[in-house]
């Protein structure tokens, strides 16, 4: 959705009390009760809207359903860091953002060299959020049935994540957004073990998912989420599964990341809007 609005502008780099045109871009994967593309692995919770006379009437979703924000405190090693209700508003709302373009296709890994080259081309101001755009959320794959959106998503290599983390820390940036379905690829345990089951069971709370996660140890999580750990260790918050990022064309960009206001939460489905001047 691309909307144009006229506003008396704010300060903080924008013009005050002067009419200008801002464009709002919706970057959020819609929550669709008919079909969600991210319900592939056992750690996904089934998104469910129960009808009003059903005992489960209401909205049932996972903390990482659809487009979602993940804080470092999702991981046990960093559980003493900020929770959702403690994140300062300025870190998520109307934050200036720079775009890092690394076009990627099915299943491709982003390498350290590619991150280095992209960084050299990017204009990045200290403190900005960083939008890593691969094009994955612009191909409509998220609307197709099957598991391709999740299992074939581009992802960062460990070395690329280390370079990106170092760059972001050096630029006082702690918010990474991306159109990839995953940041790393959980292919040490999760993908090979779960995807070897035929027919593939449903996500949590299927019986199979409950049994699998019962046996999924912290050591396995560290293997599978090594890339996420690298970023979490330096305090970087992650927003993944953005869509329509190619609609963002301006260098003057602000991002709104609007998660549910969950007390002591560590991740949440969220709404993401880009504002271009």
């Amino acid at each position, binding site marked *: *959705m691309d*909307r*144009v*609005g006229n506003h*008396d502008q*704010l*300060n*903080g780099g924008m013009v005050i009390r002067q009419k200008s045109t*801002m464009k*709002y871009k*919706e970057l*959020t994967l*819609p*929550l669709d*009760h*008919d079909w969600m593309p991210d319900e592939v692995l056992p*750690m996904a*919770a089934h998104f469910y*809207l129960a*009808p*009003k*006379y059903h*005992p*489960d*009437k*209401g*909205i*049932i979703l*996972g*903390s990482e359903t*659809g487009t979602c924000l993940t804080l470092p405190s*999702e*991981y*046990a090693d960093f559980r003493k860091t900020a929770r959702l209700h403690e994140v300062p*508003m300025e870190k998520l*709302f*109307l934050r200036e953002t720079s775009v890092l373009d690394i076009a990627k296709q099915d299943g491709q890994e982003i390498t350290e060299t590619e991150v280095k080259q992209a960084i050299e081309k990017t204009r990045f101001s200290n403190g900005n959020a960083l939008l890593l755009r691969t094009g994955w959320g612009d191909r409509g794959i998220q609307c197709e049935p099957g598991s391709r959106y999740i299992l074939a998503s581009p992802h960062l290599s460990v070395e690329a994540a280390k370079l990106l983390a170092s760059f972001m820390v050096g630029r006082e940036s702690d918010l990474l957004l991306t159109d990839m379905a995953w940041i790393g690829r959980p292919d040490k345990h999760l993908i090979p073990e779960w995807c070897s089951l035929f027919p593939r069971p449903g996500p*949590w709370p299927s019986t199979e998912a409950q049994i699998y*996660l*019962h046996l*999924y*140890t*912290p*050591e*396995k*999580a*560290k293997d599978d989420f090594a890339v996420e750990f690298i970023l979490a260790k330096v305090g970087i918050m992650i927003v993944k599964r953005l869509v329509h990022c190619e609609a963002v064309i301006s260098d003057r960009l602000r991002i*709104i990341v*609007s*998660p549910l*206001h*969950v*007390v002591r*939460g*560590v*991740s949440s*489905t969220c*709404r993401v*809007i880009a*504002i271009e001047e």
Partner: protein
Amino acid sequence: MRLIDLTMPIWPSAGYGEILPFTNTPVEFIEYMDYANNGMRQTRLKLNGETGSPLMMPAQHAPFDMTPLQKNPRYNWSLNEIPLEELVLHDTAILDIAAGEGHEINAKQIEVALRKADYRKGDHVLLRTGWGSLQRAYEMGIAYLKNSPSVHYDAAALLADKMEEMDSRMFMTDCALVNPPRVQGYNWFLGESPIRPLPKPWPSAEARERLMDMGGSYSYAHASKEPSSYGALIRKTIGCGKCLVNCDQIKEPRVKMIILPLLIKKGGASSCRFVAVE
């Protein structure tokens, strides 16, 4: 630029999920991955369209029932159809009516507040009573809703007409309930024969019995014979938000509002984030 979070937080067993038989259901979390066993957390959240600070549309029970709560609404959009310019940095007038515990705002108070407000064509409207505070919500539990100030029908009808005249399209308030609690909770927690102890909401046996008493539907009426204040407002707006907090932190008579519900395809109501920008 100053950002003020006006959003009621979400936590398990919050009072707003325990007070009414149908429209609000309990907030429940299940930690199906946890630090000790898995080295990381994943949570399943059971929410409701009115959890926290909600944004509610005329067809509140969408996508399963697309019929609006009130006949002939000015708008009848679902959550994913709201244009972003209505949700992002939209000019908003503050309508100040200080109201304490149990007060029902009347038409005269609306008239006075409208005269005093810096209210311009196309503005959204935020009715501020001073009731909405985190401390109150955390300490009072369901009494935060039972004792909330509210809007009498005559006042709501007057405000709704004025909002249509001014081409206003969103109504928000820091009242925990828009309808007076005696109307909304009639013969549930207040009224001639309130149920004691207060039953759990749907799908409790008591809520199911109440549904039978109401003829099998709660879509278009509540148990009270009084007209719905909320109904008067939702009929003239794109959507209504309630149960906001921290509105006393707004210093200016006008703000720009960020109003972001979940992007639920064909959704009728959602927990929402409300942020004022000064």
